């Protein structure tokens, strides 16, 4: 057997903070501690390595060992040599974490790269997939109910144009959206050029946008687009996506300081914004399909975009529709290419035109 190693240390007996100078003999399975104050017999104790309660080693080679029932005794030894030779029983996760942390810069650098890679993989591939999957688990009835209560809360503070809402709903009913979501339009009196859809089927259109429409196809395009948001469950998807992104970020970076959280949170939001652009394009495509299916001239989409862009150039009102609908150029290009390639057949819809005129006229008499 190898020669025993002897170290100097300080012992705290768990009763007071007085430090007792001790010498410690390190054996493979135990520590034998001799007090330098008391006589050798009563001042000697043996700590079995396997029964050690807690063990800590900090940067300046201070090793702390706790032993015994509450209140534990604590042994402090300041020695690099002891730190190297002493093999305390650390269990499970602690052992793994400890051995990795103390395995040198190359290993840490490799792990850092692996973690960053893994995080990116999770964030950009695994999470979106999981979020998408969980959305399909949300029952339709629940979505409709949620949308209904959102709608009720929101509409309280808005000025609903009852007459035009009625006409707009008649217009909506003429179009086949190929969905069993209970679609419903509400026309709200506002100077803001905007329209949006709530989950479950409510579509809200602001009068400023209606007033600037030149042809009924634009309204069909708008309703088709918003209905696309509803049927593709975009709000729910968006909520799931940003929530899961937020969850991942806050779990992984939760222990870090406020500024870090802010930086990462912003990055997350910017990423969510690009996701919402993807959803807009998807809704455009659904709207386009609806128009083709109902044999309405899909050029309405293009002129709707132009209408919205005009609002943007005027600049006196905030075109909210556009602020969440950026890169309009790309979206216009996407639709015009589809029209060019597919050359969809369309007819004139006198009844829709009539309703559209009625919608515009009702607006005029109001002013």
């Amino acid at each position, binding site marked *: 057997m190898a020669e025993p190693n002897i170290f100097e240390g300080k012992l705290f007996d768990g009763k*007071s*903070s007085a*430090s007792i100078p001790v010498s410690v003999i390190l054996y493979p399975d135990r520590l034998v501690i001799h007090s330098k104050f008391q006589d050798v017999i009563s001042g000697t104790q043996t700590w079995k390595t396997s029964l050690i309660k*807690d063990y800590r080693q*900090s940067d300046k080679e201070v090793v702390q060992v706790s032993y015994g029932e509450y209140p534990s005794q604590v042994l402090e030894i300041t020695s690099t040599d002891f730190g190297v030779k002493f093999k305390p029983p650390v269990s499970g996760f602690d052992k793994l*974490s400890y051995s990795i942390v103390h395995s040198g810069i190359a290993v840490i650098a490799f792990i850092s790269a692996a*973690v960053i890679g893994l995080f990116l993989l999770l964030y950009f591939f695994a999470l979106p997939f999981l979020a998408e999957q969980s959305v399909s688990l949300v029952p339709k009835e629940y979505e409709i109910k949620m949308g209904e209560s959102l709608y009720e809360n929101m509409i309280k503070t808005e000025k609903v144009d009852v007459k035009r809402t009625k006409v707009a709903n008649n217009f909506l009913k003429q179009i086949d959206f190929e969905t069993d979501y209970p679609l419903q339009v509400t026309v709200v009196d506002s100077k803001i050029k905007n329209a949006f859809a709530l989950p479950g089927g409510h579509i809200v259109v602001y009068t400023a946008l209606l007033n600037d429409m030149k042809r009924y196809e634009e309204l069909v395009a708008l309703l088709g687009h918003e209905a696309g948001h509803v049927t593709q469950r975009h709000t729910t998807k968006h909520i799931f996506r940003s929530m899961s992104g937020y969850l991942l970020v806050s779990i992984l970076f939760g222990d870090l300081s406020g500024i870090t959280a802010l*930086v990462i949170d912003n*990055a997350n939001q910017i990423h969510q914004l690009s996701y919402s652009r993807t959803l807009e394009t998807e809704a455009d495509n659904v709207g386009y399909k609806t128009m083709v299916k109902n044999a309405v001239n899909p050029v309405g989409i293009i002129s709707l975009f132009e209408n919205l862009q005009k609002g943007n150039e005027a600049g006196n009102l905030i075109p909210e529709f556009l602020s969440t609908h950026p890169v309009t150029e790309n979206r216009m290009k996407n639709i015009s290419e589809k029209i060019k390639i597919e050359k969809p057949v369309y007819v004139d819809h006198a009844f829709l035109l009539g309703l559209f005129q009625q919608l515009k006229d009702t607006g005029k008499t109001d002013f």
Partner: protein
Amino acid sequence: MQNSGQSLSFHGSGQKLFSLQIVNVLLIIVTLGIYYPWARASVLKYTFSETDFGGSRFTFHGTGLELLKGMILGILVLGAAYGSLYYLSTAHHPFIGGFLFFFFMMLFIPFIIHSSMRYRTSRTTWRGIHFGYRGDLKEIMNISVKGTLLSIITLGIYGAWFAMELRRYVLGNLRMGNVEFSYNGDGFKFFRMNFKGYFFTIITLGIYAFWWMKDIYNYYVNNIVLTQNGNEVSLRSTASGGGFFKLMAVNLLIIVFSLGLASPWATVRTLKFIFNHVTLMGELDLDGIIQTEENYKNALGEDLAGILDVGIV
């Protein structure tokens, strides 16, 4: 009282903390999040073991398993509360739901402060001496309810008095063995300081914020008194507004330019700044601190505080 040379200091290194946290992140991902409480425990253990007082380090004895239990309980309780709020809102009783939730939080936050103080102090030692918190749950709830309601009635003005009362209560029940803590902050002075800080910050376009921060920090530290066998020793902060400015500005640069990766270095800088600016005015008998606290077993609260982000002490 003289500066005795007995002081706190932090010896951690950004590199060690980075290694620890990157390993934590890896294990959290690999275990699908289960490792989270162990990660938390490992960071607490590390930072405590690098904090020195009078030549000896602090030790955190809490375990990941204890924190996990607290976390699960916390998620269940909070989940139930949010669930019933949501249920009542959709069942057309948003007002009742909101009121009940507010009432619940008014009692729940002091409960979290109470239990996390109990837990964390019991798991913290210095030279084998356990810290302890002897506050009473009912009393801290009374303070919270009274403080919250008065703050609402006075449009937030009472908030300063509330904050000081809470601090007096929590610190007044804190001890390290037979060394008892107390806090002497006063609501009016705290209010005046914040009032001044608020306006000067606006007038100077935010520059004064660092000096305001320094005032608050110093007010927190300088009003702490330690009592051991009738011997009173108060703490003194040596932090300056310029020091806060340098700390925050450099931290911001470190974090932003590393996209958050180097934040352990920023954390270490902050801890060094906070601990290295505290000294004792007077002398404690560092060899004569006596173990006084019973063993305590309950982890609820420790991680609830993390979820709700309640800052303690």
